[in-house]
C-alpha cells in the first residue's frame, strides 16, 4: 500500500531511504563516461540537423508540402532544443565532461527567457522548494489554484481559460514571470534589479523575434514571407503547448502532494528526497516520448537527482520505483493523455471556492488516514523500526 505522505515512516527509515538514494546517485556518477558523452553529442547533432533542414524547407514556405514538413521539423527541433538540451544542460547534467561548449555556465537556449534568469528561478527556487506552497516559485503555483490548501480568489474562476492562454504563450509567460513583478510590488526586489532583468529580457526577446519573424521569413522571399513567419509562429506555439503539458504533468496531476511552508523547518536530506518524490509525477511511454519531454517523463528521478545525465533517468527508474514501493511511498505515473486530463480536472475543480471543497477535503483526509494506517501495517517488515520514543531529532540541512 503506497501513500502520499511519509507519516508511516520513522525518522530512521526516512534517513535509510535517503542513504539508499545517495548510494544510487553515487553509482551513476561513478559510471558516467564515453557512452553518455556519445548520447548528448548525438542529440545535439540530431537537433541541429533537424533545425537546419526545417529552415531549408521553409525557404520554400509558400509551397504547402514544404511548409508542412518544415513546420513539423522546426517544432520538433525547438522541443528537443528546449527540453533535452537546454533544460538539462543548464541543470549542469553535462558539466562533468568539462566541455565549454556543453556546459551550464555557457549554454544559451532557443527561448525568450535568458538562461541566467532561468537558472535562478528554476534550478534554485523550484528545485529547492518543490511543491511547498508560497515558496515554490514555479509559475503554476503563483497563478493557479491547484490545491484546497491554497486561498481562493475570485480571479481563480477564470483559471481554466487563462491556463489555455498560458499554454499558448508559455515561453513568454515564463520569461515575464521571471521579472518577478510580485516581488517588485511588495518591495523585496529593487527597481534597479527589475530594470536590469527587464533589459536582459528585451535583448534576448529582440534577437529571438528578429530571427523567427523577420530574418528567416525574409529569406523565404516576398511571397513566402507570411507563410514562413506563420511557420515560426506555429512551431513556437506547438513547443509552448507541449512544454506546458509536460511541465504541468510533472507536478499538478492527481496523486501529487503539496506541502505547507513549515515542511522546510529542519528538513533532512531524507525528508527532502521524500518531498521530491511525492511532489513529482512521471509519464509512461516509449523512448520517443522520453526524449521529446527532455526525460521530464522521469520527473521523479529528475527531481531527486536534477544534475544526473538525462539518459540515465530511464535506467534508474525501476530501482527508484522499487525503493518507493518498499517504503510504502506513492510513485505516480501514467500515460500523458490520462495525466494531462487529471491536471485539467484539477484546474477546473479548484477554480471554485473552498466551501464547495470542504466536504471533498474531509472525505479525502479520511481516506488518507485509512491509507496511512494500512501502510503502517504494511511497512512493519521494513528493516529499521526502533521504538517510537527513541526518535532522534531531525538534523538540519546545511545552507
Amino acid at each position, binding site marked *: 500500500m503506497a501513500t502520499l505522505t511519509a507519516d508511516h515512516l520513522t525518522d530512521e527509515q526516512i534517513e535509510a531511504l535517503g542513504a539508499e538514494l545517495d548510494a544510487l546517485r553515487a553509482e551513476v556518477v561513478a559510471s558516467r*563516461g*564515453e557512452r553518455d558523452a556519445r548520447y548528448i553529442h548525438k542529440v545535439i547533432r540530431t537537433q541541429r540537423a533537424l533545425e537546419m533542414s526545417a529552415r531549408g524547407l521553409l525557404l520554400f514556405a509558400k509551397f504547402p508540402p514544404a511548409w508542412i514538413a518544415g513546420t513539423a521539423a522546426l517544432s520538433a527541433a525547438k522541443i528537443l532544443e528546449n527540453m533535452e538540451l537546454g533544460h538539462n544542460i543548464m541543470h549542469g547534467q553535462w558539466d562533468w*565532461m568539462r566541455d*565549454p561548449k556543453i556546459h551550464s555556465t555557457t549554454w544559451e537556449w532557443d527561448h525568450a527567457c535568458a538562461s541566467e534568469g532561468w537558472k535562478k528561478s528554476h534550478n534554485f527556487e523550484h528545485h529547492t522548494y518543490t511543491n511547498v506552497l508560497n515558496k515554490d516559485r514555479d509559475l503554476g503555483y503563483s497563478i493557479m489554484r491547484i490545491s484546497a490548501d491554497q486561498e481562493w480568489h475570485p480571479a481563480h474562476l477564470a483559471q481554466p481559460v487563462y491556463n489555455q492562454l498560458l499554454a499558448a504563450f508559455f515561453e513568454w509567460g515564463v520569461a515575464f514571470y521571471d521579472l518577478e513583478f510580485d516581488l517588485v510590488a511588495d518591495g523585496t526586489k529593487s527597481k534597479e534589479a527589475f530594470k536590469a532583468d527587464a533589459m536582459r529580457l528585451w535583448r534576448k526577446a529582440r*534577437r529571438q523575434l528578429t530571427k523567427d519573424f523577420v530574418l528567416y521569413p525574409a529569406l523565404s522571399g516576398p511571397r513566402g514571407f507570411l507563410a514562413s513567419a506563420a511557420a515560426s509562429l506555429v512551431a513556437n506555439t506547438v513547443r509552448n503547448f507541449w512544454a506546458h503539458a509536460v511541465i504541468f504533468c510533472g507536478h499538478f496531476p492527481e496523486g501529487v502532494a503539496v506541502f505547507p511552508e513549515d515542511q522546510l523547518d529542519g528538513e533532512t536530506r531524507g525528508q527532502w528526497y521524500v518531498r521530491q518524490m511525492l511532489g513529482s509525477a512521471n509519464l509512461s511511454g516509449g523512448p520517443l516520448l522520453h526524449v521529446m519531454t527532455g526525460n521530464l517523463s522521469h520527473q521523479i528521478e529528475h527531481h531527486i537527482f536534477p544534475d544526473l545525465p538525462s539518459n540515465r533517468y530511464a535506467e534508474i527508474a525501476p530501482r527508484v520505483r522499487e525503493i518507493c514501493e518498499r517504503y510504502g511511498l506513492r510513485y505516480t505515473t501514467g500515460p500523458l493523455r490520462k495525466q494531462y486530463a487529471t491536471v485539467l480536472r484539477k484546474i477546473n475543480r479548484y477554480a471554485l471556492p473552498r466551501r464547495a471543497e470542504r466536504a471533498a477535503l474531509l472525505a479525502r483526509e479520511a481516506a488518507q488516514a485509512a491509507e496511512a494506517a494500512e501502510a503502517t501495517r504494511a511497512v512493519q517488515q521494513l528493516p529499521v523500526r526502533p521504538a517510537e520514543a527513541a526518535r532522534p531529532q531531525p538534523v538540519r540541512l546545511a545552507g
Partner: protein
Amino acid sequence: MAKWRELGGRAAARARGVANLLTTPLLPDDLLGTLNPVWSTSEPAARVVAVRRETADTSTLVLRTGPRRAPHRAGQFVGVGTQLAGVWHWRTYSVTSRPDERLLAVTVTAIPGGTVSGALAHGTPVGTVLRLGPPAGEFVLPEPVPEKLLFVTAGSGVTPVMGMVRHLAATRPDALAGAVAVHCDRTEADVVFGAELRALAAATGMRLVERHTAVDGRLTPDALAYLVPDWAARQVWACGPGGLLDDLGDWWGRHGDADALHVERFVAPRPAEDAGTGGRVRFTASDIETDAAAGQPLMLAGEAAGALLPNGCRMGICHTCVGRLRSGAVTDLRTGERHDTPGEPVRTCVSGAAGDVEIEL
C-alpha cells in the same frame, strides 16, 4: 582605396551580425563545429592524420588543423585536449613540426602511470579529434640566431629542440654548422628522433654527442664541460628532467653567464614544503564555492565542484588558468611563496588555498 576597405569592413561586420542572428542563440561557429570540429574557431580542433611511433614510449601525432591556426615558433608547445571516458583533459606538448609545415606534429611521451599521456601516445587512432590551445612558451631562438649554439637535452626533453633543429636545417643550415647537441637517454634504442638527429648532424656539420646513461651514467655539468670545452662561449638551450636543469642552473650561475642558459621544464619542480593550509575557495564568476585541501591546487578543487575553469598545461607554465585574487591568500605549491595582494593574477593550477580565498574566475 581606404574608403572601399572601410565599406568592405562594414559590410563584413553587417554580414556577421546577420549570420549571428540567424543562428541565435548559437553562433555560426557552433554549427560549423558540429559539421566538422576542425572548422570551429572558438574551440580550435585538429584531426589526427598519422601516428608515428618514435620509441617504445613516445609517439608523434600528426594533426590537420583548421584553416585559422595560430602560427608557432620553433621550440614552443601547444595545449592538447583529449576526451577520455567523456571528460576533456588538457596537457601541453612540444611542437616538433616546422612552423612552415601545413600539418602540425606534437610528440608525446607516455609518463609511467599517466593516464592522459599514455592514452595519447598509445591509444590514439588516426581520425581522432583533439582540441588545440594556442602555441606558447619562451623556449625559442632569438633573431638573429646566435652563432655558437649548444643544445643539452635528456629523454623527452629533445622534443622542443627537435622543433628548432628541423626549422634551422630547413631555413638556415649554416646556423647548425657550428652547433653542438648533447643528448642523453638510457640506451640507443630509447633515443627519440635518434636516426634523424644523426642524419641531420652529418648533413649540416652539427656536432652530436649521444650519451647513453645506462652505460655512461647521468650527465653532470663537469662531464658536459669536458665534452664541450667551449661551453662558456655558447648560448645554451636545455630541456630535460628537473634535476639536470637544476645542476646546469647552478653551474652556469657559478662558473658562466647565467643569461646564456635557457631552460624548459616539462614537469613542475617538487612541491614546496609549505603546501598551504587549504581552505574555502569561492570562484566569483562561476559562483561556485568549495573546500580545497592543503596542497590541492585551486583548479582541481574547483573542477571537482563543477566549475569550468580555464586551463592549459596544468603545471604552472602556460598562464592559461590565471584568475585575479579578490580576497584571501594563496600559496604557490611549487615554491611555498605566499600571494595575498588583492587583484594579483594567480595561476590556479599551481596555487593552493592559504585560508579562505576568492578568485575572479
